[in-house]
Each structure stands twice: as C-alpha cells, then as structure tokens.
C-alpha cells in the first residue's frame, strides 16, 4: 500500500509564476503530490495546463515562486548548496518530447551522451567515460559503435533512445519523461514504452510521465494526476481513475480518448467541461480532499458530498 512505500519526491503547494511583477502569469498554482520510489506517476493535461512547467520546476529549470519540492527528505527548490545541486542533477534526469529537436545536430552521439559526465565528472578517465557511454547505449538497444555517428543518421525511434541513453548515463534514480513518445510513430511508440518499462524493472527507476494522451498514460502509470490550468483536479490510482472519474474535467478527458474501435467510436458521447459549473465562492471554496484511500479530488464541500455519493460512501 502506498503509505508504507518510501516517498521519493514530494511536491508541496508548488507555485510557478512567469512574467514580471506587473503582469504575472501563474502557470502552476498550489499543486501538491507525492511520488513513491519505483512507481510511474502520470501527469495529464492539455497544452498550457502547466504539466511541463511542473516537470521543469522539479528539475530546477524553472524557478519556483512558492511551495517546495522535497527529494528524499531534502528541499531541492529555491536556493540549495552546490553539493546538493550536483546531487540533484545526478539523481534526476529528463527525457524530452521531440527527439528531432532535443539532440545537438552538430555533436556526435558520443558527446551528446557524455555531456553530463563532462559537466559533473570533469576528472573522469577517458576510458571509463567511453565504457559508460557504451553501456548506456547498449542498455537502450543501440550498438556502441553508434557513438561515432551524428543524430541525423538515426530514425526518430533511435533518436529517442539516444535521448534516454543520455539520461541513463548519469545513473539517475528518478526520470522526468516529458511527452517522450508523442512525436513518434505508432509502431515505434510501443518499442520506446517497452524499453522504459524494462529499464524501470532492471534499475528500479521512478518515472514522472508527462503526457496529454490518457490512453498511453493509463498503460504506463501506476497513479495519475489530472491537471487543468495549473491546478490539480484529481489524483488517483490509474485503474481507479478510469473506473470512477469524479471531477467533470477528468470525465470530459476520458470521454474524448480516441479508441481504435469503429463501433465504440460511433456510440461515443463527448462530455464538454464547463468550468462555470463549479460556482466556487468565499463561503464554499474549492478543497483538495482524499475521498477514498489514494483518490484525491478538488471540489467545494457540496461537490465533494456529491462525489462521495457516487463512490457509495
């Protein structure tokens, strides 16, 4: 059960604001969730919902304007010591969306994969570095000889493997995968998803899987958080979320999943989310509550009571 598992990452009331003081834009507003060791946590939302910003805030690319990110019990957001910073870079790595855009076109694979090693292990003997690169390439199913080639010589799926090798060479514990398969073809997607699952099993990796495609997230994630306009709407074990979606936004997302089934598609009924149904007010503000073990929903008291009824409590 989740409570007995070790919390690897805690996000507490995270807030990320862009723009200057006069024109602030809050991309992420009061988001809290935990990620347990060894699990895959899926973060789903539309474009502009702030899902990527959360990932980037965790890895310290975007500065946090409120709240905390706690990794293995240590606060890693805001100002941290140099030592902790290095530790974080080591332990948390990222896989990017578009393998066509995220690899340096003018660098050989050898350099792309070892860039992190150059930055953090400046004194690493050349031979050891080469061994590490070869091992990383092999672990993603590429040949070590590929190290001497340039990115344009590879197909999309292979390039995404290079992106994964670049993350693995640092021997991270936690990987943030930001839409890692949405730029790939259907048949290649399956290969990359399988690779990610296999690596998780072998190395006990923990993933934060950011995506907009719920069907993919359902397949790979243990738990899913649904985010809309910078706020979490619902968080639950993935099967539970699909069985009992409570929040209207989650329901509309689920209703829109395209299914490869003509008869099912024909009978599909689209639900459109209308944020004005909530009627939040000063006296009845939205709360973030756990309605059943591990299943959190955002809603006012009145709404939460309704959701409880749906769950049969």
């Amino acid at each position, binding site marked *: 059960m989740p409570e007995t598992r070790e919390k690897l990452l805690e996000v507490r009331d995270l807030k990320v604001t862009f723009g200057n003081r006069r024109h602030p834009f809050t991309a992420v507003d009061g988001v809290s969730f935990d990620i347990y060791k060894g699990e895959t946590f899926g973060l789903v939302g539309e474009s502009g919902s702030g899902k990527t910003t959360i990932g980037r805030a965790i890895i310290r690319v975007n500065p946090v304007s409120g709240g905390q990110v706690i990794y293995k019990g240590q606060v890693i957001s805001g100002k941290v010591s140099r030592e902790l910073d290095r530790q974080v870079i080591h332990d948390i790595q990222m896989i990017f969306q578009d393998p066509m855009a995220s690899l340096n076109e003018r660098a050989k694979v050898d350099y792309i994969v070892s860039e992190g090693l150059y930055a953090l292990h400046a004194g690493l003997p050349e031979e050891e570095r080469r061994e590490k690169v070869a091992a990383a390439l092999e672990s993603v199913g590429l040949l070590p000889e590929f190290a001497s080639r340039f990115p344009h010589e590879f197909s999309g799926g292979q390039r995404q493997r290079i992106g994964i090798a670049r993350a693995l060479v640092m021997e991270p514990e936690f990987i943030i995968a930001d839409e890692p398969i949405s730029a790939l073809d259907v048949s290649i997607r399956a*290969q990359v998803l399988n690779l990610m699952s296999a690596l998780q099993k072998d190395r006990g990796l923990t993933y934060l899987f950011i995506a907009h495609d719920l069907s993919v997230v359902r397949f790979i994630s243990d738990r899913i958080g649904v985010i809309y306009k910078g706020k979490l709407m619902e968080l639950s074990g993935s099967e539970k979320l699909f069985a009992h979606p409570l929040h209207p936004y989650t329901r509309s997302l689920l209703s829109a999943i395209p*299914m490869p089934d003509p008869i099912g598609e024909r009978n599909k009924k689209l639900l459109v989310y209308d944020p004005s149904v909530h009627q939040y007010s000063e006296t009845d503000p939205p709360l973030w509550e756990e309605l059943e073990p591990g299943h959190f929903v955002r809603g006012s008291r009145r709404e939460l009571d309704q959701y409880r009824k749906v769950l049969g409590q």
Partner: protein
Amino acid sequence: MPHENDIILSFQDLDIRFTLRGQVLKAIRGVSLDVYRGESLAIVGESGSGKSVFTKSAMGLLDANGTIAGGHIWYEGKDLAAFTTEKEWLTIRGKEIAMVMQDPMTSLNPLKTVGDQIEEAVVLHQGLRGEAAKQAALEALAAVGIDDVERRYKQYPHEFSGGMRQRVVIAIAVACRPKVLICDEPTTALDVTIQAQILDLIKQLQRKLELTTIYITHDLGVVANVADRIAVMYAGDIIEVGKCEEVFYDPKHPYTWALLSSLPQLGVKGQELYSIKGTPPNLFYEVHGDAFAPRNPQALNIDFVERPPFFDVSPTHKARTWLLDPRAPKVEPPEHIRHLREQGGKSYA
C-alpha cells in the same frame, strides 16, 4: 451516402519518384485506389509510408524533385497525372480538391489577418471582389463555428487558440466549395478534447457540403471515428483496403495486425506491448516481394521473392498478402486482434 459505382477520384498504377543527390527514391510503387463520391476515406500509415506524397500528387503539390513516373490520376474525366503547367493545376487545386494541413501554427500567414487569408482564396478561385468577397469570408468563418465573425475577421492568427486556428484553416479550404477535401493529420497538433470537436466539425461540413473527404493519419483512434473506408499504406504501397469495420475487426495483412496490436489502448498493464521489430525498408533500394516481410516473424518464403497481388476478402475488402492465397498455410492473427473483434465488434458479423 457514398455510391460504390460513383468514383470521383481514381488513382491507377501510380508511380512517384524523388531524385535526391543522384539517387532515385520510389516513394509510391504502383498504387491503385478508387475514391467514391461522398465517402470518407482514411489513409493510414507510419511516417515515410508515402501517404502524404500520395495525396499531394492529386493536387500537384509534389516537391520540385518529385515526379509522377507512371500511372494516372483520374478526376472528372481529366488525367491529373498528365498536368504539366501551374495554370492547369489552378483549375483543380483549391477549387475542386482542397487540403487542410497538419499544423495550424504553420499553415496560416502570421502577418495577415484571418479575414484577408480567407478572402485571398475566394478572390482567386471564385473571382469575387470587394464586399462580396468579404461576405463570403464572413460566411465561411461562421460555417466553421466561429462566433463574433465581424471582430474575428480582423484578427491575426496569433489571437486564435490552436483549435480555433484549425477552424480557420478549414474555413479557407471549404470557402471555395471544393468537392474533395484532403485532411492531412488534421488533429495531430491539437489536444484530445479539441481534436474531437474538429473531427465533428469536418464530419458536419462533409454532410452539409456533400464533400468527399480523404483523411491522412497515423492515429487509428481518429480513423475509427471518421472513416467509412480505410486504406493501409506501407513502404509506398497500399497493402489493405476495406470498410472501416472490416479493417478493424477482420484485418488480413500482417502489417495491419502489427499496427493494431501495438496500440497502447489494447495493451495489458505490466505486460510488454506488442511492438514491430526493425524499421521500414529504405525506398532508395528495390523492394522485393512483400515489403513488410523482413519485419514479419511469420513471413512465408514467397514473401521475400514475389510481391503479392491483391486478394479479395469481400467485395469491399482486399489485401496484398500471400496469406490469402488458397495454398498458403493458415496463420492466425495475434491475440490482440481477436480480442478487438470479440470486444468491439460484437454487433459486427
């Protein structure tokens, strides 16, 4: 409703080649396909399978190094493959056959107002001027579900959201009342919730304007939603054609099996997803036999030697695979496919 005998667009033995640094790439290898009036046809395939090139050839939009090396494209008694001048193409492109591109971010001009861009189309193709052109543009905007058209008409693309922008692109495409609308990955760049709305819009326009639509996509969820018929493309060839239900519930070609099986929607959590090994063939080289054979673990010997002909499964369903030859051994489709048939296709005989 589509009439089986009323063919609006017919591709016959089409060969398309590209010359790249002295090498010849055979992008389309002898493909024949009939498109029926009023139907909605989906062409499915991975990137590089030639699905975009195939449809672009019907609009004269091939890149400069690409040529139609053989075959015919018949449209209303004219052979489009024989067109040589831009003037000839202008009688077809936009007017008779129009296209909606993938990414609304890049297919609109950021420096021109949305109204101007729609007017451009009606001025060119319908010869309207001044107030008449503006009226046509406003109507086109309203037809694609954009509110407050007078104000929206004067706005620039950046003032529109992604979904709204795609609506504008569709408005431009249908403003000239084409008979055939080609939608090249119309929703790939959009969010799922918006995607469903755009697909509904295209379907609704299709009914209202009696369009024939051709969708090009790799998303089988979209295909299941919109298509009357499906053509599956692999390595520059159509390998299976059939009604939507036939291809989803009773696919015959091993590539179609593999494509459907690798969908995460059909995967079981904790188990490996079915994945196709290897990569598609390099079309710079001659393809022998069935192009999918090297990636097909159950390929027959003949698959490597001779290209299979089309075998009829039903009057509307045919596939290019030796498995349908009466002499072929019986190969069962993978478990996922049988599962899909049992689950979704309950009402399908």
